[in-house]
């Protein structure tokens, strides 16, 4: 494929290079590094005792529990959806395929607040289904189901988005080979497709999970801010911060920040893995 490019560009004079690198580093420090650092600093500034209490306090435990429930439901569902959508859009050709792929991306384009509002319009008491559901004794908005639904919406495309480009690139020759050797559809999927996409799945699931645990806007619209009842971790952070309980807010934030950092590391590792694979393929 491509010729090996000269990476370290000696074309630009040294002062240009150092100016640009300096600007990059400066900008990123102020924009990214300091905020990341301050989360952990503020979390433990008042000592480990405060940190531990902040995380084990009853309302914090409830918030963590609710976030886990929301992620626990939305991640498997969106994982299954991602697999199905990736298979349907990469293994077959049909009219309207690119439209379907764009629609899968829609939740990225829709602001979380608007997403929450949309669910209020469907499930709220003045919405389409709210009154009917209420008569059955089911409350969605301002209750746990609403939080779960909003979380499903905002994390909807993550697994599919990781899988579609990868499976498109891999094509379906290996699958056809397996079928021609007598394998069934499930055997082909489990033994041939799955091993080829497992790292992308892992990353997609991690990303989906990090977002599910951390979603704020959409969830805040559909949850009642009655603390301890429908507070997820981000909502709890919001409440604590507004009550000037900064240390407790940052303690909870540090959990989510750690999750975010793990996701970043996983992404970097995955990219390295893919790059290695490409290099290997090219070299032979």
């Amino acid at each position: 494929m491509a010729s090996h490019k000269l990476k370290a560009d000696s074309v630009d004079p040294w002062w240009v290079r150092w100016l640009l690198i300096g600007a990059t580093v400066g900008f990123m420090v102020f924009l990214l590094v300091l905020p990341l650092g301050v989360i952990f600093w503020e979390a433990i500034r008042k000592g480990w005792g405060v940190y531990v209490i902040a995380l084990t306090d009853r309302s914090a435990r409830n918030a963590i529990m609710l976030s886990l429930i929301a992620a626990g439901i939305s991640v498997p569902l969106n994982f299954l959806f991602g697999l199905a959508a990736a298979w349907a859009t990469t293994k077959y050709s049909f009219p309207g395929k690119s439209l379907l792929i764009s629609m899968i991306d829609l939740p990225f384009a829709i602001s979380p607040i608007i997403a929450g509002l949309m669910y209020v319009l469907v499930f709220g008491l003045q919405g389409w289904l709210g009154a009917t559901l209420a008569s059955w004794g089911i409350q969605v908005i301002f209750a746990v189901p609403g939080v779960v639904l909003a979380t499903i919406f905002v994390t909807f495309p993550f697994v599919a988005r990781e899988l579609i480009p990868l499976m498109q690139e891999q094509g379906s020759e290996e699958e056809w080979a397996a079928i021609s050797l007598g394998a069934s559809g499930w055997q082909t999927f489990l033994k041939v497709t799955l091993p080829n996409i497992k790292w992308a799945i892992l990353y997609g699931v991690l990303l989906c999970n990090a977002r599910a645990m951390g979603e704020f806007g959409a969830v805040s619209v559909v949850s009642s801010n009655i603390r301890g009842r429908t507070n997820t971790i981000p909502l709890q952070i919001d409440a604590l911060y507004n009550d000037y309980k900064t240390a407790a807010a940052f303690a909870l934030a540090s959990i989510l920040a750690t999750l975010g950092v793990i996701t970043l590391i996983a992404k970097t590792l995955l990219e390295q893995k893919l790059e290695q694979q490409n290099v290997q393929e090219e070299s032979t």
Partner: protein
Amino acid sequence: MRTSRTSCKRPQLPGWGLTFGFTIFYLTIVVLIPLLALFLKSITMDWNEFVATMSHPRVLAAIRLTFGASFLAALINVVFGSITAWSLIRYRFPLRKLLDALVDLPLAMPTAVSGIALATIYSHTGLVGSHPFPLGIKTANSSLGVLIALIFIGFPFVVRTLQPAIEDLDQEMEQAAASLGATRFQTVMKVTIPSLLPAILTGFTLAFARALGEYGSVIFIAGNLPMKTEIASLLIVSRLDENDIAGASAIAFVLLTATLLILLLIQAIGWYFNRRTGRQA
């Protein structure tokens, strides 16, 4: 002897019905029906009521702030994002890999967490905000704070769009320009930047579109003063808190339509440049 023949269905890998069916079903339930609800709510709204809602000074101020700050943030991101992408791809320096990985931080970090972190640093007592404060510059509780938050969340979009474009940039093209006698500055201005233009435009629009709908990372640093530092998303939330669902839907409709139009524009940009350079999308 030509005869009309009807084409048979092509043999396919197994699983079409299951995967396509589930995809459409789930997409409809989770995305399309709620979207339809918003759409119907907006178009069934009385026109005068809609105009009245939207021309409320507080709404106008929020929309002006949202669009203005988003645009400005995207513009600043184009400058610093381009420099960042260029440095990360073209130069070798210590901690380069770490910085490269950190670019995605705003996407990986929950918005509320980013929000309180930015608010803390840029508050008038914060690590950074305390320095310009004596000079009368408020980096939090001001529209500058809104801008900072929007720069934060739009940054990865510009860098990640530009990086592959810079990587694909044919360095022989630059060498050719140099061999033809162009100075480095001329080469960059006449060869490099024009060939990166599609990516720059795409990155700009992505960052802009994302900023329009941002909520979590903004509200902590913004101060949320009506007419001054209140963004459109927050106004939707306030309207909902007042149980003014119609008003919330109207603002949401405008915001969403703008976002979708902008994203459509990206498609058009991609289509236009691909056609011009004969590249396949």
